[in-house]
């Protein structure tokens, strides 16, 4: 397959039920092209987290397929899939489990077999991308929340992923950290799937949005258009913050 036209992520017919019988996904189809930034919106309990955990094969066993840059997610290529799909989890304290920032960022590439100066260079580059180079030898619990979130992004960037998946990237951030993270995400040359409730943030960063509701993709289109469709928004329990009018802002392409 031609690598330029192969989408970064291709999900088709994905359905999944938890062992207790609760069905979370009922046939999800979408595709994300290389370099796109897409927001995944949806109310609580829509199946967003379940979907994310399918992208790197933590959850499997339902119907349907997921392909990352042409490679099917499955037992055979698990190590490569996990390198290609970088998930940044919501709580950076869960993501940063090593004693120092440097070791944490090195964890992924080292698990993939990188070592020595090559590993060191990878760590430096990832930390530079999120502007955290000078915090290399700090323990993660001595950083501010916003800094920890940025390091969490670096831990994933160090693996040079095909697609970056962010779970609620703006949660618990103060406005300044929120803007800093947005600047960083915009500067990255990587495909991004952003799972969020933060609609203005989605509009600011992602030209395209998907709405996941009750286990299916209910809408797929330009973020500004979806957010302006009051009927659609109400039907899926999505609410804009008070006083926010998506038509009044012009998102950059």
């Amino acid at each position: 397959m031609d690598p330029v036209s192969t989408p970064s992520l291709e999900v088709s017919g994905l359905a999944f039920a938890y062992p207790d019988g609760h069905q979370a996904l009922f046939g999800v189809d979408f595709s994300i092209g290389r370099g796109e930034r897409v927001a995944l919106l949806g109310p609580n309990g829509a199946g967003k987290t379940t979907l994310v955990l399918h992208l790197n094969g933590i959850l499997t066993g339902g119907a349907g397929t997921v392909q990352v840059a042409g490679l099917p997610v499955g037992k055979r290529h698990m190590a490569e899939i996990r390198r290609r799909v970088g998930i940044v989890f919501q709580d950076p304290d869960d993501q940063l489990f090593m004693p120092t920032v440097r070791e944490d960022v090195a964890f992924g590439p080292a698990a993939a077999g990188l070592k020595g100066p090559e590993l060191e260079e990878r760590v430096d580059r990832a930390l530079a991308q999120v502007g955290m180079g000078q915090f290399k030898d700090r323990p993660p619990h001595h950083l501010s929340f916003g800094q920890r979130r940025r390091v969490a992004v670096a831990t994933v960037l160090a693996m040079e992923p095909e697609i970056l998946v962010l779970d609620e990237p703006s949660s618990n951030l103060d406005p300044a950290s929120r803007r800093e993270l947005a600047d960083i995400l915009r500067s990255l040359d990587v495909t991004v799937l952003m799972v969020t409730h933060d609609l203005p943030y989605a509009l600011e960063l992602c030209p395209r949005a998907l709405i996941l509701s009750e286990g299916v993709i209910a809408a797929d289109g330009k973020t500004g258009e979806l957010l302006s469709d009051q009927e659609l928004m109400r039907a899926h329990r999505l609410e804009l913050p008070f006083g926010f009018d998506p038509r009044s802002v012009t998102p950059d392409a």
Partner: protein
Amino acid sequence: MGAGHAHRLYRHGHSPVHALPPHTKLAAAFAFVVVVVSTPREAIWAFGLYAVLLGVVAHLARVPAAFLLKRLLIEVPFVAFAVLMPFVAEGEQVDVLGLSLSVNGLWGAWNVLAKGTLGVAASVLLASTTELRELLLGLQRLKLPPLLVQIASFMIRYGDVITDEMRRMRIARESRGFEARGVRHWGVLAKSAGALFIRSYERGERVHLAMVSRGYAGSMPVIDEVTASRAQWSYALALPVAALVVCLLGWTL
């Protein structure tokens, strides 16, 4: 590593002892303790020589005597036990200041006191010249079961996170008018402890998820390879070797 944010047992410095690779220091301290423990208790002078050896190490490491003595206070509970021994042990009795003491008990007390103090002093020296993080690397290098090293390093990483959670739960309890006063309130404290356990357990699951997502497959990747030259080994092992000479003299004289 971790300049300015080290554990409080550690004493930052640039002495030759600080510079030794961690696994050589661990091996030296362990061997020293084994030698001390296997010295006959009747050879009182030998223990004096051991103390002198440790004094030399402390001097080389530029650890002040006051610092060392203060850290030795941790031994106090064991000292209390040793003091009891002459009163409770059986056998030949001897009168000291009008008290009838057991000769065996006196020797036993001396044995515990001398060997315990030397062991604790050696550990304190090790801890004050080696950072926690390095100790873990040393243990890993000495081929301690990797699972134990991983558990220890997670304890260091998450100790603060869990204490923080505990503090927040206490504040939440107190904000609702609860104050632990006496046995009747133990039930509430026990429930808090249970809740804390479940929270930590769930965090453990989330951390594991984050590790698996970055390619963890059961063993930690080696990020920092610690190595020691022959000279460093012989420098570190000078302490236990000197102690061994004293010990052998103690047995033969």
